[in-house]
């Protein structure tokens, strides 16, 4: 069991920032509350948002807004680029009824999917408590009791915490199963179908990334629990073919866990981002005009890439900013990689044409580009070949 991500005292020495003290933590919390708006409750991060955050760890804007618990969907609407996300009530109803079916019969159905035909009695402890802290503590207690016991236990919607970029976030897996040997297994219940034993690869990937975050959060608790071990294989439960009968598949999330863990460690600490901001800046939607909010958002740099559109509420807002800046990554991350030091579309086109005259981009870039630069030379050849082919096709059409 590796050390958890967040125990501030044992952070690796290579990071230069000072070890956070309780006082500095309080200061950060206060600062984040200020940014969010003192009257606004923080918005919890769901695991999907976390996994998406880990997919673009370089984005400070997203890290800060998520860390401060700002309602990004509401913010995006005020900025004039509402997020296109939403969930159909048909899908929600279907998802809920399927989950209820899976957990029916006191958890025995779920254990059957795990391959346990006769589990004896299955303990399903009550995890309700007031407030997220209470529920987290209740979950930890139930996990300890289940690990000490010698039967099967099903934890229905336990609540876990994970420290992300210096601030705690709450996570709620669908279920965790504790087996008689003290091994904890994350259960992820999804409503996309597994047809002939195979489900949509993209959806399985997203579920695995999400489950990996739960595994990381569970490892924190396991480190403090004697005899506990967190399984790196999670159970993915889906409807079988075109029925509402559940079927399950074990998914190895070791790779996703390692990737997520590394990405989370790389996340710039939120307090650093917050400290770099000018005083008095706030994302509180109350009493602020769209212009003021927009200026506040602009104060935090973004790292837009097209896949943000499907993961982040502010994706469309950042896209229009990136397009205004004529940035090449609006066309995709891969495009950016092939162009060397040229970062604006205007600069690339100018380099390709070799005219040296600034294109539509800013005048500071390496306009025209030095011909000896291999990236520029390749662009010029590509440009010339493209023009030659197009001219040839035109001539052929005129004939």
């Amino acid at each position, binding site marked *: 069991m590796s050390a958890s991500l967040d125990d501030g005292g044992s952070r690796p020495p290579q990071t230069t920032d000072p070890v956070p003290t309780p006082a500095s933590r309080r200061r950060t919390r206060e600062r984040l509350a200020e940014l969010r708006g003192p009257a606004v409750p923080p918005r919890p991060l769901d695991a999907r948002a976390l996994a998406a955050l880990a997919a673009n760890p370089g984005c400070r804007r997203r890290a800060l807004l998520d860390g401060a618990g700002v309602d990004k969907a509401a913010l995006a609407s005020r900025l004039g680029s509402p997020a296109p996300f*939403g969930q*159909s*009530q048909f899908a929600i109803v279907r998802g809920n009824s399927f989950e209820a079916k899976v957990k029916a019969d006191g958890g025995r159905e779920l254990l059957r999917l795990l391959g346990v035909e006769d589990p004896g009695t299955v303990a399903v402890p009550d995890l309700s408590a007031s407030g997220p802290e209470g529920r987290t503590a209740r979950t930890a207690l139930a996990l300890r009791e289940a690990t000490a016991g010698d039967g099967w236990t099903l934890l229905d919607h336990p609540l876990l915490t994970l420290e992300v970029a210096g601030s705690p976030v709450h996570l709620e897996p669908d279920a965790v199963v504790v087996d008689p040997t003290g091994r904890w297994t994350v259960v992820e219940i999804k409503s996309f179908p597994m047809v002939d034993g195979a489900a949509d690869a993209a959806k399985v990937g997203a579920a695995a990334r999400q489950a990996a975050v739960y595994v990381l959060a569970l490892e924190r608790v396991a480190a403090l629990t004697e005899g506990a071990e967190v399984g790196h294989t999670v159970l993915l439960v889906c409807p079988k*073919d075109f029925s509402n009968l559940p079927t399950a598949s074990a998914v190895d999330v070791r790779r996703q866990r390692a990737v997520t863990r590394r990405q989370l460690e790389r996340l710039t600490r939120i307090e650093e981002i917050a400290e770099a901001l000018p005083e008095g800046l706030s994302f509180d939607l109350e009493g602020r005009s769209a212009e003021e909010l927009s200026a506040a958002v602009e104060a935090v740099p973004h790292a837009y890439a097209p896949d943000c559109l499907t993961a982040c509420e502010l994706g469309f807002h950042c896209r229009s900013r990136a397009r205004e800046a004529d940035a090449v990554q609006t066309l995709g991350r891969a495009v950016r990689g092939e162009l060397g030091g040229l970062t604006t579309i205007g600069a*690339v086109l100018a380099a390709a044409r070799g005219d040296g005259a600034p294109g539509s981009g800013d005048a500071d870039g390496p306009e025209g580009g030095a011909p000896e630069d291999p990236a520029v030379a390749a662009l010029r050849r590509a440009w010339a070949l493209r023009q030659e082919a197009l001219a040839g096709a035109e001539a052929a059409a005129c004939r």
Partner: protein
Amino acid sequence: MSLIAHLARMEAVETGRAQPLATVRHRHLGGRPLVLVPLTTAGEAGAPLGALVGTDPDEPRLLVVPQPRDRELRFAFLAELAEEVLPYVDGYADAVELVERNETDPETGKKTKVEVELCADAPQLIVPSRAGIEYVRLLGRSTRFRRTAEQDPDTPYPAPPRVPLLGRWLTHYGERARVPGSSLLLAATDLLNRHWATGQSSLEDQHLGALLAWIDPYDDEPGAEGAHRAELGRDSRGQLLCPPAGPATDPAFDNQLLAPAIEAYDRARQAVGAAEDGGTADAALAALHRAEREVRRLVLSQLRPTWGATWRALGLLRQLPEGARVPDRWTRDRWSFTAHRDRITAGEPPQPRRDDAVTAAAKLAAREQAQGQLDAQEALDDPLVLAGRRLSGEAFAAEVTEVTMAWTESKRPAPRPLLTVRTEDRPHLDAGVKVYRSLGGKPQSAEFARREEDGSLVLRLLDRMGRSKEPAEGTVPEKGERISWTLFEHDARVGPKLPDPEETPWTHGGPPRSADAELPDAVTPEDLL
């Protein structure tokens, strides 16, 4: 994607209009394709909500499931879809041409010529987006194992008669769509993306409305603005101006409009069931029809824009001249169609859930070969595609500066002329590398001999010059001619032929194929899928 395609995207950003990625059309478009725009219910697998289908842009047939969770209504939808698709498919089954094919007699091992049927044309299915292709596969999978009352009188929920057959055809089309370069089942977005570069990323290019805003804008509106409106624009009620091309619907549409309408439909159905006398029953029936019409109206409002957009995309593609080698690939599609027609006529069982090892290996090999063939053919058909290969050093255009005759030193000398050519391109050539050019549609090969001091290349022509000592006329390039050479073969090499299933060693054959047909999916008593 190559640097040339990146540049095209950037030019599109600069001009606000999509830029060509091809100078010819690289996919076959039939005279009478069947367009299918399906919609599905969120959260349910294979629970269709509705569809527009037809071969006439002005007269689509609207199919709607007013309560997608009702099995009977779903079956009714599938039966109607079969009524629309199967006559269209059958319309191509009878017009055949006879083609000679070499076949080996299994007993004597002698090769004989046999005449076999090849359908003169094949039905072509067009869906709006790539997700539509997946949905066709899913519909095929969900219906091909269904049992009709005729096949199995004891089946608890018999499917309408032609539905399993529909499933087999949809499965075949879905499977064929995975073969590179095939045109039996195509997505409008894929077609547009193959031929134009927009000023957005390939992820955003999956949105049909946004794509058309770049390629075919209204009133010369800049592409980025039109695309933004297509992606996000909403009316005063919060509904998308450009509904998604499906099969998934917009959640706002589901929650605000569709859910209340379906609920009203359910209530009206209950009222019909509860009606006690004739008068109330008539009133309840009228209310039920009204409720159903309302669901149909809503579903149509989401389908209609996509229907129009799909036909607009086809119209744009028809403006491009067809590539010279596209008919060759379409012939393969016709073979595929003919073969499936024969399997159905022969009464073979539906495609299995999973391919066995031998079939899977054969499919993989066929797709690999098709990919190689597609890459080569597209480059030969289209100078813009060839430009990409020239950039990567896999082809070069060169002017012949000198022709020196030479012969082999055998008893019957054959011509091996040496060509000195000059090129600006930078092909990856080493001594002995073979290069190819197209001579009357057939590849002529040459071998790289050496590089001259002034940078010219010397090539030795190897074939297609006839049998006599002097090369046949027109087979040797003349001085001053400009020729495109490729380093890749024009007909992708066919790997060693896979053995027949019976001949496959047990180590490679996988578990033995069971002779029985696959069992239908389990059905649950609830109507819930």
